[in-house]
C-alpha cells in the first residue's frame, strides 16, 4: 500500500516535470494577440508605402514630361540659332578652322623682318581680303566667334602698320655724270665689288637695255637679297645646272625655260656670269 502511494507520487512528479518543461517552451511562441497586432502594423506600413509610391510615380511622370518638353525647346532654339547664322555646327567648325589658319598666317607675317615683309605686300593684301570675306559672313556673329574675329582684326591692323613701316629690301642709286655700271658697283655704299655690275644690270633690266649705256638721273634699285623668284648665279654654274636645282625646276632639261625668262640679259645660252640675277618664275 505504501509502495502504491509512492509509485503514484513518483508518476505525478514526472508528469508535472514534463508539463512544466512544455509550458516553458510554450512561453517562447508568439501569443496570438501579439501576432495580430504585429500583422496589422506591417499591413499599415505597406499600405502607407503604396500610397507614397503612387504619389512619387505621378511626380516622376510629370518630371519626365517636362524633360521631354525642354529637349524639344532646346532643339527648336538650336535650329533657329543656326538658321539665323545661315550655318550649321559643321559649318561653324569649318569657319573657326579657317579663322585659325588665317590667324596663324598673319602671325607668321608679323614675325618677318622688315625687308622680307616688304616683299610680301601682295600676300598681306590677300590676307586682308580673306579676312573681310570671313568677317562678312553671318556665322561671324556667333557669340564665340566674335572675340576671335576681333583678335584677328587687331592682328591684321598691326600687320598693316608693320607693312607700312617696312623698309624695301633695296636702296635706290641715282646715276650721275661719269657713272658706268662697273664704277657704280665698286662703290662701298653699293656692292663694293665692281664685278657685281652685272647684278645691277640684270636686276634693273627694265631700265637698262644696253649695259654700256646708262644716263644721269636714272634710278637703279640696289638689292642685297635675292627674291623668291630669282637666282643669283655663282661661279661654276650654267643653265642646266641651275634648272636642276630642287628650288628651281628640279629638271636640268628645263634650262630652256630659264633661258626664255632671261633672254633679254643672256646673249649666249652657253655663257652666263657670276652675280647675274636670273628670273626663275
Amino acid at each position, binding site marked *: *500500500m*505504501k509502495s502504491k*502511494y509512492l509509485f*503514484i*507520487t513518483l508518476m*505525478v*512528479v514526472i*508528469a*508535472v516535470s514534463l*508539463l*512544466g518543461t*512544455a*509550458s*516553458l517552451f*510554450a512561453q517562447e*511562441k*508568439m*501569443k*496570438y494577440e*501579439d*501576432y495580430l497586432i*504585429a*500583422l496589422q502594423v*506591417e*499591413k499599415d*506600413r*505597406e499600405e502607407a*508605402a*503604396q500610397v*507614397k*509610391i503612387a504619389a*512619387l*510615380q505621378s*511626380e*516622376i511622370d510629370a*518630371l*519626365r514630361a*517636362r*524633360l521631354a518638353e*525642354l*529637349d524639344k*525647346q*532646346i532643339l527648336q*532654339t*538650336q535650329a*533657329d*540659332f543656326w*538658321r*539665323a*547664322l545661315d550655318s550649321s555646327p559643321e559649318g561653324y567648325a569649318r569657319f573657326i578652322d579657317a579663322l585659325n589658319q588665317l590667324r596663324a598666317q598673319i602671325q607668321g607675317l608679323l614675325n618677318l623682318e622688315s625687308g622680307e615683309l616688304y616683299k610680301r605686300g601682295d600676300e598681306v593684301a590677300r590676307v586682308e581680303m580673306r579676312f573681310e570675306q570671313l568677317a562678312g559672313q553671318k556665322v561671324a*556673329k*556667333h*557669340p564665340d566667334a566674335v572675340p576671335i574675329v576681333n583678335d584677328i582684326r587687331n592682328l591684321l591692323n598691326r600687320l598693316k602698320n608693320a607693312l607700312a613701316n617696312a623698309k624695301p629690301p633695296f636702296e635706290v642709286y641715282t646715276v650721275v655724270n661719269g657713272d658706268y655700271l662697273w664704277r657704280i658697283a665698286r662703290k662701298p655704299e653699293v656692292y663694293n665689288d665692281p664685278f657685281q655690275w652685272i647684278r645691277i644690270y640684270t636686276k634693273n633690266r627694265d631700265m637698262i637695255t644696253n649695259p654700256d649705256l646708262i644716263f644721269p638721273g636714272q634710278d637703279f634699285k640696289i638689292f642685297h637679297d635675292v627674291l623668291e623668284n630669282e637666282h643669283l648665279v655663282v661661279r661654276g654654274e650654267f643653265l642646266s645646272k641651275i634648272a636642276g636645282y630642287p628650288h628651281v625646276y628640279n629638271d636640268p632639261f628645263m634650262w630652256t625655260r630659264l633661258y626664255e625668262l632671261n633672254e633679254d640679259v643672256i646673249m649666249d645660252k652657253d655663257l652666263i656670269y657670276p652675280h647675274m640675277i636670273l628670273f626663275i618664275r
Partner: protein
Amino acid sequence: MKRKLKTSVIVLSISLASMVFVFGGCTKYASEEDLQALEAQKQAADAAEQEIARLELEKANLEQQIRVKEQELQKWQDMLKKVGGEK
C-alpha cells in the same frame, strides 16, 4: 500513518497540478502558418519602402537633369538673342 500518507499524496498531486496550470495556462499561440504570413507581410512592407527609396532617387535625378536642361535652353536663347534671331 496510511491515512497521513494518502493525504500527503493527494495534496502534493493537487499542488503540482495547480502549478502546471499556473505556468502553462490556457493561452493561445500563433501557428507556424501565422508566423510565415507575418514574415511575408513584413517583407512586402520592406519591399514597398525600398521602392520608395528608389523612386525618390529617380525623382532627384530627373530634377537635376531638368535644371541642367533649363540652363542649356537659357544659354541657347541668349545666343539666339545676341545674333538677332529672337522670335
